[in-house]
């Protein structure tokens, strides 16, 4: 090769020139290859990315659907409002630092590089003063114009800064992990310390829900800052970092209701011959739910607004979530989020053509509930533990609490509980109240006291669908019906209560409550209805033994015990059903103790099955979308059903019934005093596990303590209008650690029946 070149180019200089030309050509080819790679291989992607800047997209918020009750009363509605947002750089102080730095460099540009670090610092501090004053004036002006509480504003600012710093930390940690995975070694935090997240460059809402007048005032201030004709338009102005945005507010018109209560029907110690107008707050809060203005990361990942396809192309889902989008937090707002949300629109502005294309938002669909808000408010008033107007949710002497338990509620102490009213024929829930539903004002503003109270009372938990309870004696009518259907009991057959305990070798185990209460007495031999009336444990122990664990479990399963009703609330839980239990638990299971639990809605649904003669019908709290459970039919013996209902009728009406008489200190009076209806009731006093909470003492040492113990008080009631063939409604009430079911729950059910009458259901 060398010889050929030398022959062609005998001159060394020529050969050197040729060598230089070859290098030049090689470099040119390299540059050409890279240029070709950029333009041809990646040209399409770059063109698309580059052209995006000519189009500005502005999202148009959607209109969230409304929520109505069964009588078309508005429970939740969307309202447009305005938010005031401020750039994060102003919130974090970075704006002041940057402006001061620019100013300092501009005034000292020739000497800046020569200054020492300390000199620069002193100069920067001096230049920060006017900008800090600007920021201070900004906050002052916002407080004056919007009349926001300064403490609230400071709290909001601190919240935003905390949230963004948390997000930054999390992002930087993920970046470090990525780099460490790539490099295989440790990567210091300083490597990613300079990286920022989008939220650090965004505007954040500091003041929500300002009206139009305030908006116009603020718009003027912002407009002046941006005015290019103003004399100081080139100077930094903090008002340029303020924005007014359109937002959506959610109003709940029926969250405060005035209701009239007739106190003459209350138990004697509580009754008054008057009616009072009672104000109920946060009506149906657990059912309707509330919104939250922060979308969590897992929610954003499930429905992202922006994602990338496998090819790396950006995809936008208008129904997807952005960081500060409103989203249902609980209740129907959450469970029907996809339905209510709608789809946002967008406006595409084409900078080069000065045109815009608007894609209108699609409003969300309305949701209609089966709830009657008037009845809901009345039941909420009845279940309110804090207001002494009715006082039914306060512990009383006649509630027959186990006094040997130290943490049993004291007299006058507020109780927690829940109530549900359901239409038997349709399975629709007319009212569902979980109590308590808010922190009482008496707690004050002490955060520790509030936290402690919330730990004990769980106000945010929906006890109707989301709290499991042992059923106690409330299962007895169902067990009886099952026993007759399986032929384990003749219709007229009586079983003995004697000797008052099931196992002679264990006289302190599996005893009848009557044996314990009367210090050794037993019920007479009882037929099925009589056993339900008196709630005789021994009868049902024996029946349970006859049925056996397997059959009992099977029957509970058929009555949907433990299963989700899928009524429409996402907080609903499935509970411990009756499967996988040992054979010797049959007697306990037959009286609703042992390894079985149900929620209030499951209890009401099971009784509704009984009331319908075995027809299984789904339970609904909303009219949209039917439950995934299909209807079915339990082949219950009709005579067995009748006898079970007869037992419940006797329980409510016979003087020996556990749900008939209120045993007050000085007198006995009927629990139910509502005329012209047929009442079938069953009480339950379920042994409940104690409530433990963690408490930190003054030294900060954590300890577990029991704060509540005793028995949960149940009453489940079926009520029939005189003309009807089958019961029309089921009402279920539970009072946690309340004591005897009939004594504590009975008067509550009675008041609910009066409320239903006032709402013309009875």
């Amino acid at each position, binding site marked *: 090769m060398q010889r050929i070149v030398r022959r062609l180019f005998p001159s060394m*200089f020529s050969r050197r020139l040729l060598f*230089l*030309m070859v290098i*030049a050509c090689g470099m*040119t080819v*390299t*540059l050409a290859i890279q*240029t070709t790679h950029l*333009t041809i291989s990646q040209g399409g992607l770059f063109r698309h990315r*580059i052209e995006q800047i000519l189009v500005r997209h502005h999202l148009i918020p959607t209109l969230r659907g409304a929520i109505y009750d069964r009588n078309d009363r508005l429970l939740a509605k969307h309202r447009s409002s305005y938010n005031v947002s401020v750039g994060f750089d102003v919130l974090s102080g970075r704006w002041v630092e940057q402006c001061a730095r620019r100013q300092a460099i501009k005034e000292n540009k020739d000497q800046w590089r020569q200054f020492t670090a300390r000199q620069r610092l002193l100069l920067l501090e001096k230049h920060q003063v006017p900008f800090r004053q600007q920021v201070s004036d900004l906050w002052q002006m916002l407080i004056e114009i919007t009349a926001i509480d300064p403490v609230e504003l400071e709290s909001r600012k601190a919240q935003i800064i905390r949230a963004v710093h948390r997000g930054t930390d999390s992002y930087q940690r993920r970046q470090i992990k990525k780099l460490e995975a790539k490099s295989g070694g440790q990567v210091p935090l300083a490597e990613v310390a300079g990286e920022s997240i989008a939220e650090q460059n965004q505007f954040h809402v500091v003041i929500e829900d300002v009206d139009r007048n305030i908006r116009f005032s603020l718009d003027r201030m912002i407009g002046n800052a941006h005015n290019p004709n103003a004399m100081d338009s080139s100077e930094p102005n903090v008002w340029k970092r303020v924005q007014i945005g359109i937002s959506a507010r959610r109003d709940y018109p029926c969250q405060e209701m005035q209701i009239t209560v007739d106190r003459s029907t209350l138990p004697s110690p509580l009754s008054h011959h008057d009616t009072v107008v009672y104000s109920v707050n946060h009506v149906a809060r657990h059912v309707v739910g509330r919104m939250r203005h922060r979308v969590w990361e897992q929610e954003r990942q499930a429905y992202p607004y922006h994602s990338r396809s496998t090819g790396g192309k950006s995809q936008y889902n208008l129904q997807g979530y952005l960081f500060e989008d409103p989203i249902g937090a609980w209740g129907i707002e959450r469970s029907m989020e996809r339905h209510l949300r709608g789809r946002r629109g967008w406006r595409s502005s084409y900078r080069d053509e000065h045109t815009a294309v608007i894609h209108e938002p699609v409003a969300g669909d309305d949701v209609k509930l089966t709830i009657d808000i008037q009845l809901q408010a009345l039941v909420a008033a009845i279940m309110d533990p804090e207001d002494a107007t009715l006082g039914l949710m306060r512990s009383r002497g006649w509630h027959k609490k186990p006094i040997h338990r130290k943490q049993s509620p004291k007299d006058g102490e507020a109780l927690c509980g829940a109530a549900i009213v359901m239409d038997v024929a349709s399975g629709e829930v007319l009212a569902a109240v979980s109590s308590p539903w808010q922190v009482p004002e008496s707690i004050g503003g002490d955060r520790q006291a509030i936290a402690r109270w919330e730990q004990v009372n769980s106000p945010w938990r929906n006890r109707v669908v989301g709290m499991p309870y042992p059923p106690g004696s409330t299962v007895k009518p169902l067990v009886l019906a099952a026993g007759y259907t399986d032929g384990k009991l003749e219709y007229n057959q009586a079983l003995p209560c004697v000797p008052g305990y099931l196992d002679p070798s264990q006289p302190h185990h599996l005893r009848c409550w009557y044996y314990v209460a009367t210090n050794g007495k037993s019920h007479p031999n009882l037929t099925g209805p009589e056993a339900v009336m008196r709630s005789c444990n021994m009868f049902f122990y024996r029946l349970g033994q006859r049925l056996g664990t397997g059959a009992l479990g099977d029957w509970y399963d058929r009555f949907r015990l433990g299963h989700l009703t899928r009524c429409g609330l996402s907080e609903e839980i499935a509970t411990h059903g009756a499967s996988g239990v040992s054979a010797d638990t049959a007697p306990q299971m037959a009286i609703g103790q042992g390894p079985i639990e149900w929620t209030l809605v499951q209890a009401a649904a099971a009784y509704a099955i009984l009331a319908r003669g075995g027809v299984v019908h789904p339970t609904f709290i909303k009219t949209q979308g039917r439950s995934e459970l299909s209807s079915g039919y339990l082949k219950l013996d009709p005579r067995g059903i009748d006898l079970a209902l007869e037992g419940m009728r006797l329980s409510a009406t016979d003087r020996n019934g556990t749900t008939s008489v209120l045993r007050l200190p000085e007198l006995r009076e009927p629990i139910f005093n509502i005329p012209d209806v047929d009442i079938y009731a069953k009480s339950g006093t379920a042994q409940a596990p104690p409530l433990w909470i963690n408490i930190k003492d003054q030294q900060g040492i954590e300890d577990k303590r029991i704060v509540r113990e005793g028995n949960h008080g149940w009453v489940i009631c079926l009520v029939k209008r005189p003309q009807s063939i089958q019961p029309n409604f089921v009402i279920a009430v539970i009072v946690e650690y309340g004591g005897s079911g009939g004594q504590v729950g009975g008067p509550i059910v009675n008041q609910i029946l009066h409320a239903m009458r006032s709402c013309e259901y009875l």
Partner: protein
Amino acid sequence: MNTLANRCMDILRSTKGRGAWYALGGAIALTWIGIEAIRTVAPDHASKQIVWFVVSLVVMAMCLLPRPRVVGLGAYALLVVTLLLLGFLLIPGLPSAVVPRGRGTTAWLDLQIMHFQPSELAKLTFILAMAWYLRFRRTYRQWRGLLIPLGLMLLPVGLIVRQPDLGTAMIFAPTLLVMLIAAGARLWHIGVLVGVGAIATVVIVLMIYFAPNVADQILRPHQQDRFRGMISQIQGDGRYDSSISFQQNKSMQLIGAGQFFGMGAEKTAKLIRWHGLPEARNDMIFTVIVARWGLIGAFLIFTLYLLIIVSMSFVAGRSKDPFVRLAVVGFGGVVFSQASINIAVAIGLLPVTGITLPFVSYGGSSLVIMFAMIGLTINFASLRPPIVSRPSFEFDPPTTVGA
């Protein structure tokens, strides 16, 4: 004027068929493309660039007059004047009316009618001085003989670095290497020098990552950032895309967006404005060209530079005068190395350096000096070859004929 006119006629007659005119054609084509590209992003500056083009042609015409020997005799003096000008810029306390400060450097002299950049003049005078120094020597074929050329290079480089203008200073090294290669320096010596330079670059880059305190002594923070940004981009790490790699990232995207045929003037102008590409009419003019004319525009640029280089190579190859040979090779070296570095920066192969694209970027000083080089090339090509005792830069061992 008569002298100039007669000289022009002489040149036309004597250079017919010789490659020098191709260099001029390439230069004019590049300048025209540059004016159109500048008009895309800064129409006001395009008009000024036309004025500078006319001035450059006048200066080029003036460079047609002197004989090579006269040019060579004055080379050292010109270099000294240039060094004095460079040193003048560094005198502390000079008013900004005389030495304005821009882009963080003191690189210009305010001559009222124009801002003149002595570092551009230094490229020309350095080449002429180096060509005059090397023309009859052989010492550069030894290691010791390379010291003086390197030392000569360090004089203007050291002053330019102090401005600071590292980008311009970088041009001198490849130019010197090109001249030494053409002059017959041993290739393995050159290879060692290049290797040492490469190793030094690698060491500096490693110091940026692992010994930043030491790196601070050599490079300023913004210069270190440029290395960091480029390496991150190569690794596909986009974390600096909005900060230190912003300029290069935007440049690459805009170049890519040009695709094959380009996006046209109007769209290119809008996109460059909206994307805020820094220095669009100066360092990133290649980006504007490719965005507007696409890959076709890029290949046209490559072709025109190659045309200039080949043309100058022909002139150097045909000439017998060693000074002319080296000077013209030096001119080609500076044009090509500067163009390559500028384009490599724009397409992301090198960190940002702040070097303009010869003949194309906006700037009066650069255009005038470049056309002066073209003028000298045409001048040197037009002359009858001198009678020399032996051909210059021929160091082949004699071949033995017979046994």
